[in-house]
């Protein structure tokens, strides 16, 4: 069951991810954004399989529910059209070849490496109270720092997107 679910979600993630960047039917950015939503949702399915339930929910609330809506808003407000198809350049071909080689290498090496690290799945969950307690002890400082990141991001986003009174 676990295996089947993994392969289903993994396939969904990869197919949707691929359609985000290279959709043969539509080059519209809206389509890209929507397929990214699907990718995010299937990733969150994988998170559930890995027993990170809290993160699975956060992933959907924050990414799919908020960040990507923002993407859609901007695409729609700017009324972006599909970009033109480009001819594949020699550079692209060489790059693609290199990536293919890297991937082949990956399939050979990663399983062996991973075996060295893995110690079998443990039976713990990313339980919410434990996460909360850690946020206010061990991870207090990053937590405070991220609040500053959000402030900077908020100030910046408002500042930049607003129309300047001329």
């Amino acid at each position: 069951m676990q295996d089947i679910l993994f392969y289903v979600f993994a396939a969904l993630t990869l197919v949707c991810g691929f359609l985000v960047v290279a959709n043969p039917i539509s080059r519209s950015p809206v389509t890209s954004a929507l397929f990214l939503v699907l990718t995010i949702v299937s990733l969150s399915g994988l998170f559930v399989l890995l027993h990170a339930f809290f993160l699975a929910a956060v992933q959907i609330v924050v990414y799919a529910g908020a960040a990507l809506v923002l993407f859609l808003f901007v695409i729609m407000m700017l009324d972006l059209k599909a970009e033109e198809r480009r001819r594949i350049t020699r550079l692209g071909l060489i790059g693609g070849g290199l990536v293919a080689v890297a991937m082949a290498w990956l399939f050979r090496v990663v399983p062996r490496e991973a075996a060295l690290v893995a110690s079998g799945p443990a039976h713990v969950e990313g339980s919410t109270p434990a996460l909360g307690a850690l946020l206010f002890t061990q991870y207090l400082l990053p937590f405070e720092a991220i609040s500053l990141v959000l402030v900077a991001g908020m100030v910046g986003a408002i500042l930049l997107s607003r129309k300047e009174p001329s």
Partner: protein
Amino acid sequence: MDLLERLTPIEQSVTFGALKVVGVFAIVMFLVAYAVLIERRVCAAIQDRIGPNRAGPFGLLQPLADAVKAFLKEDFMPAQAHPVYFWLAPALVMIPSLLVVAVIPFGSTLGNPDNRMVIADLNIGILYTFGIASLGVYGIVLAGYAARSKYPLMGGIRSGAQMISYEIAMGLSLIPLFLLVGDLNLGAVIDYQARGLFGWLIFKQPLAFAIFLVAAFAETNRLPFDMPEAEQELAGGYNIEYSSIKFALFFMAEYAHMIAASAMLVTLFFGGWTLPFFGLDQPASTFWGGLLHIGIFLAKLLAMMVLFVWVRWMWPRFRYDQLMALGWTRLVPLALGNIVVTALWLWLKAG
């Protein structure tokens, strides 16, 4: 029952699971259909009219008549519209509210103690509902975009912005509840409230209830926050280019949202399937007791839906900027203050 007992436990749970899914889906769809009728009858009563009473006894077949009418209308799609998104949007609006219901415990147990009346008993139930509910905005935004015309686009962006803005107030308003309960599981929330009438969280957290309720009105896009119907501003909203059954889907989605929101309200603030009298706050030991719990839940749900309907016909509409100002400058700070106060209170209580 004999047939059931011959199944293995796993097969039993699968069977029950399937039954629950089908049952809940049927009840929700039934409620959606009749919510329209309730709305029209309550509205009529408020306006001192009779309301629909021709189709069937007391107008009970009115939903059917409405459905036939919706199907028979011309299904029109503007020439410039994006066909895929135009089809996708109504479905996307409908689905999330149906999925939210999956984690709501609509009863205690039925038959045997392991057969709990909730489709998915998630540890992070409440986060799940927020996650799914936040996906509802895609249908609206996409509907606005798909028609490729400016009124729907503006309407879609407005409604979308409204939904994600109020989601913040909604989420923040619930944090004090979970400070009290100490768990995100909705079953645990109900257990916490099963200690007398004043154990209900509406009495412990009235402010949270008020914020959540206001935010729920905004999330369901209903009056006093129903921008899509603000004709004088936008000539309609994101769904202006839709007609026939696709429009009916948007229409039904509004009621499905209302049901989901009511179910959340009942579970979070009104003790879910419990009643503080006659020992009805403990899981049922008999089959009929279980049914009674489901009945209590449905009764509370209907009461909340009537509240939604009542508000709609008694309130004027907010202007869009007032609506956003209310959300960001009133509700969010209030909710934050509520969190601080609750946390301080718990801290002092713990010494």
